[in-house]
């Protein structure tokens, strides 16, 4: 049977998140009003904030998986860590892109060098791009797992820095402090933002499951490939021995 990463549960999850994305689109573009200050650009925040938070989740999964790799030396956790890092990079990239698109009309610039949150987010993104690049160049699976686990753990130090940067360097950022806890956002706007978080969390979970399964299949392909190569070599060697026994005095292929 052809290996697949889908299952009944993931197909249901996929259907649910598709409906969720449509509903979120309706709330973002139809039911909510444009902001008095940000105008229509506020609609980007229904994507920007959830993907930013989920990028932290992805990197945290990577860090936890990395710690478990060092503790348990488990392939399962290594694949989980890699999947988390890949989704973290994807969502952090989306955060940077949606932030730049939002920043152009609101801050009058695509990119603000003086903004500490932008810079720390970019650095966190680059740290994990390095992590993923590193995983591609280390051929031995067990060495790759152990070494990349260290990079994954060091990289997670960025999360509190990115998250708290607007408080620690208040004068060096255009980003506002978190207003979610104080419920300063208008009701329907807050609801749409929360809906965005739920929907993008489903997207994250769906991608995570599939990426993990792809990683697991890759691991099996590597293992099966190695076993098959060893079996082929053994069969070749057995044939050479049989030939040497059948025709003593004639040198075999491996002697040439």
């Amino acid at each position, binding site marked *: 049977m052809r290996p697949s990463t889908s299952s009944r549960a993931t197909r249901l999850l996929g259907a649910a998140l598709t409906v969720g994305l449509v509903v979120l689109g309706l709330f973002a573009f139809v039911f909510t009003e444009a902001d008095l200050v940000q105008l229509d650009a506020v609609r980007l925040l229904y994507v920007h904030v959830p993907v930013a938070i989920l990028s932290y989740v992805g990197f945290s999964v990577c860090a936890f998986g990395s710690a478990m790799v060092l503790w348990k030396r488990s392939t399962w956790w290594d694949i989980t860590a890699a999947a988390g890092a890949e989704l973290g990079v994807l969502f952090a990239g989306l955060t940077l892109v949606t932030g730049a698109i939002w920043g152009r009309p609101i801050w009058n610039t695509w990119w603000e060098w003086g903004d500490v949150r932008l810079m*720390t987010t970019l650095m966190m993104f*680059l740290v994990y791009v*390095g992590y993923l*690049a590193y995983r591609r160049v280390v051929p031995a699976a067990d060495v790759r797992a152990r*070494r990349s686990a*260290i990079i994954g*753990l*060091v*990289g997670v130090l960025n999360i509190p820095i990115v998250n708290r940067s607007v408080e620690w360097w208040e004068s060096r950022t255009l980003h506002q402090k978190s207003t979610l806890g104080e419920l300063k956002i208008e009701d329907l706007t807050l609801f749409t933002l929360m809906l965005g978080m739920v929907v993008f969390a489903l997207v994250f979970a769906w991608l995570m499951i599939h990426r993990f399964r792809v990683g697991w299949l890759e691991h099996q392909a590597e293992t099966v490939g190695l076993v098959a190569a060893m079996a082929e070599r053994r069969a070749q060697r057995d044939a050479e021995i049989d030939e040497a026994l059948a025709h003593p005095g004639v040198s075999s292929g491996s002697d040439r």
Partner: protein
Amino acid sequence: MRVLWAIAEKDLRIEVRSKVVASQVLPFAMIVLVLFGLALDADRATLRSFTPGLYWVAVLFAAILAIQRSVSVETASSAFEALRLSGAAGWQVFGGKALAVAAQLLAVEAVMALGVVVLYRSSFDDPVLVVTAAVGATVAISAAGSLYGVLAVGMGVRDTILPMLLLPILAPVLVAATRAFDDGLGTAAVNGWSWCGLLAFFAGVYLVVGGAAYSVVLEDA
């Protein structure tokens, strides 16, 4: 600590004999300073105001070379194997390697400081702050570099993967060292000592992480 010192002494002795840092890394760092001057059209006022940033970017480039050298002395003749068999703990090997890199980098930085005074006409208004920031940043760079340097061992792409891994995690060190130098050189009105605190934090974190993780990577090196 005796083992740690012995490993640091070994690396420094190799440098004294081979003079790779003195004859290649230091000239490279000075060339970078000169190139910055050329790229900025030799405008002294601009150069002076940007000296802290230019200086630390040049130091980071030089550090990459120094770290690659520190690793290559171990891989060239399978010396990592000897280090593993010596019975030295991972943190001792890490500490010795980081200490040797730090000593070499501090020497390079001292000459580069003379370079920015001569080439950019910069002046050190607060030498104590400048030295403190330099030591903090150098410890952080050496600790992170020594850990990541050995992570890149055994790969054909070591020269390209090391900067890609190392430079992003050293970005906060670059920012903090530049701000502290802004105060120390009088190029901006900032509190340099608070940035020294951040440098100390990162130096401490990278020392602890490096000391704890080095034995894991050493067994695969």
